[in-house]
C-alpha cells in the first residue's frame, strides 16, 4: 500500500468526519446547555432535530396536507418545529418533574424520544426514504476528496452559531442569567430572575440548535426514517458533550469535531471482518476513557 493511499485513507475520513462532527457539536451544544441549566441529560435532543428535519421535508414537498413552501421557508418552519417540540417538552414533561430526581427526568426524556419517533412514524411512515440536501452541488471536487456545498454550509453554520452563542452568553443580560441559573440557582431566584422562564428559554435555544443540526445532518446523510437522527447522532453528540465535561460550550463544539473524526477514521480504517461496528466501538471506548480518566472532561472544567 503506497503512502499516498494511506494518507488518503486518513485524510478523507478526517475531512468527512470533521464535517459530520460539526453537527454532533451543534447537538452537543444543546445537551451542554440543558445540562448546565438543569443538570439533566436530554435523550430527546437529537430527535428534536429529527422532528425539525421531517417538518422541513413536509413543507418542502407539500406532504401531509401542508403547503409546499420554498426551501428557505421550509427550513425555517422545520427549525421552528424543533423549538416548539423542545418548549412543549419543557412545559409538559420537565417542569412537572422539577423536584424529581434527575434520573427520573432523564428517563422521561427517553420517553419523549420514543414519542417523537412514533409521531414521525405516524406521519412519515416506516419505510426509509431520503432527505434532500439543503444545499446541492460541490464546493470542491478533487480526485479523492470531495467537499459538498452542504458540508461547507455546515462548517459555516457551526462557526456562526458558536460566535453567536459566545456573544449571547457574554454580552446579553439574558445569556448571563442562563449561566447564573446553572451556577447558583438559589441566588438567581433571590435577585428576582424567574428560573421557570429561563428554563423555557434554555429549552427553546436547545430546540433551535437541534433543529438546525437535524436539518443539516439529515440532508448530509440522506437517510430518512423515524428516529434516524437519533440513531446517527445521539451517542456521538453526547460523547462530544462529555469531552467538554458537559459544561463547556466550546468544549462540546471541539469535542464534536474530534468525535466525528475518530468515528470516521475507525469506520474507514478498521475492516468489518476484524471488528464490526468499529465506529460505535471507538465512540464507546472514547466515552469510557474520558469518563474514567477525566470525568470533568478533556477540554472544559466544571464551574
Amino acid at each position: 500500500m503506497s503512502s499516498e493511499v494511506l494518507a488518503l485513507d486518513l485524510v478523507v475520513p478526517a475531512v468527512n468526519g470533521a464535517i459530520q462532527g460539526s453537527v454532533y457539536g451543534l447537538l452537543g451544544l444543546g445537551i451542554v446547555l440543558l445540562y448546565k441549566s438543569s443538570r439533566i441529560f436530554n435523550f430527546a435532543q437529537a430527535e428534536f432535530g429529527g422532528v425539525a428535519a421531517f417538518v422541513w421535508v413536509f413543507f418542502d414537498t407539500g406532504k401531509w396536507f401542508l403547503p409546499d413552501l420554498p426551501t428557505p421557508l421550509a427550513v425555517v418552519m422545520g427549525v421552528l418545529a424543533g423549538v416548539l417540540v423542545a418548549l412543549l417538552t419543557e412545559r409538559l414533561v420537565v417542569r412537572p418533574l422539577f423536584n424529581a430526581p434527575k434520573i427520573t427526568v432523564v428517563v422521561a426524556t427517553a420517553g419523549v424520544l420514543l414519542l417523537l419517533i412514533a409521531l414521525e412514524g405516524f406521519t412519515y411512515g416506516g419505510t426509509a426514504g431520503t432527505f434532500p440536501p439543503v444545499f446541492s452541488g460541490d464546493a470542491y471536487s478533487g480526485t479523492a476528496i470531495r467537499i459538498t456545498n452542504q458540508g461547507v454550509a455546515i462548517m459555516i453554520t457551526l462557526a456562526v452559531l458558536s460566535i453567536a452563542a459566545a456573544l449571547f452568553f457574554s454580552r446579553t443580560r439574558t445569556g448571563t442569567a442562563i449561566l447564573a441559573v446553572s451556577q447558583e440557582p438559589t441566588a438567581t431566584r433571590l435577585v428576582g430572575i424567574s428560573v421557570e422562564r429561563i428554563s423555557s428559554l434554555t429549552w427553546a435555544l436547545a430546540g433551535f440548535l437541534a433543529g438546525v443540526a437535524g436539518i443539516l445532518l439529515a440532508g448530509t446523510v440522506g437517510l430518512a426514517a423515524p428516529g434516524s437522527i437519533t440513531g446517527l447522532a445521539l451517542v456521538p453528540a453526547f460523547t462530544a458533550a462529555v469531552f467538554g465535561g458537559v459544561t463547556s460550550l466550546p468544549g462540546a463544539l471541539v469535542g464534536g469535531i474530534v468525535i466525528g473524526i475518530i468515528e470516521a477514521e475507525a469506520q474507514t480504517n478498521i475492516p468489518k471482518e476484524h471488528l464490526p461496528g468499529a465506529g460505535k466501538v471507538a465512540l464507546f471506548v472514547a466515552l469510557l476513557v474520558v469518563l474514567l480518566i477525566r470525568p470533568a472532561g478533556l477540554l472544559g472544567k466544571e464551574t
Partner: protein
Amino acid sequence: MSLLEIQELRTGYGALPVLQGISFAVEEGTTAVVFGLNGAGKTTTVNCLAGLLPVWGGEIRFDGQVLSGKSPKAIVEAGLALAPEGRRVWPGLSVLKNLELGAWSRKDRGGVGATLEQVFGYFPRLDERKDQLAGTLSGGEQQMLAIGRAIMSRPRLLMIDEASLGLSPKLAQTVFEVVSQINDDGTTVIIVEQNVGVLPYADQALIMEKGTLTYDGSGAELERTGELRRTYLGEAAAS
C-alpha cells in the same frame, strides 16, 4: 407602623417544621440582629422572608403590604433583599456581572450605575477585582460581593445571613462597620449572626432557640444581660 411586621410565622422543610410561630417587628432605619445556635431557625426565618420557603402559617407584612406567599421575584421587587448564607455568588461570572445581575429586578436602568458606584464605595476591594471571576475571590470578598449584590436591587430592607461566618474577627468587624454605614445611609438591616461582635451596631436584638423567639429587645439591653451567654453556653456560664 413598622417597616416589617411578622406574625406567628410558621414554616419548615418538606414535612419538617422549623419555625413554630414567631412574631416580631423591625422599624424603618434600624439594624436588627438575630442570634442563635445552629439549628435555631435563623436562616429559615430569612429564607422564608425572601420567599425561598413556603409560608405554612402566619403573616409577613412589609410596609403594610402582605408578602407571605409571594415569589422571590415579587419580594425583591417590593424592596426586600437577602445576602444568603454561604454567600452563593455565581462563581463563573465576573464580580461586575454578579453585581449587575443583582440589579435584575430594577425598573430604573439609569440608576444602576450610581448604585454600582455606591457598592464600590462601601467595598473598594470589589472595585479592584471587578473583572475577576467571583469563584476566585477569598471568603471575605465573596461575602462582600453577596452583600453588594443584594444592595444592587436598592432594597429598603437588607437581610444578611451569617455575615461573619468563616471570617477572621478583624474582617468580621470590617464587614459589620460597612453594614452599619449602609444602615446610616438609610437602609433597614437584619443580620443573622453568631458573633457577638455585631452587638454594638444593633438597635434591636432577637434570640432564637429551637424555632422559637426567646428574646426580643434593644441591643444595648442585651449587652448588659447574660442572655446571650445562657443561649450559647448554658446557665452556669451566664451567672
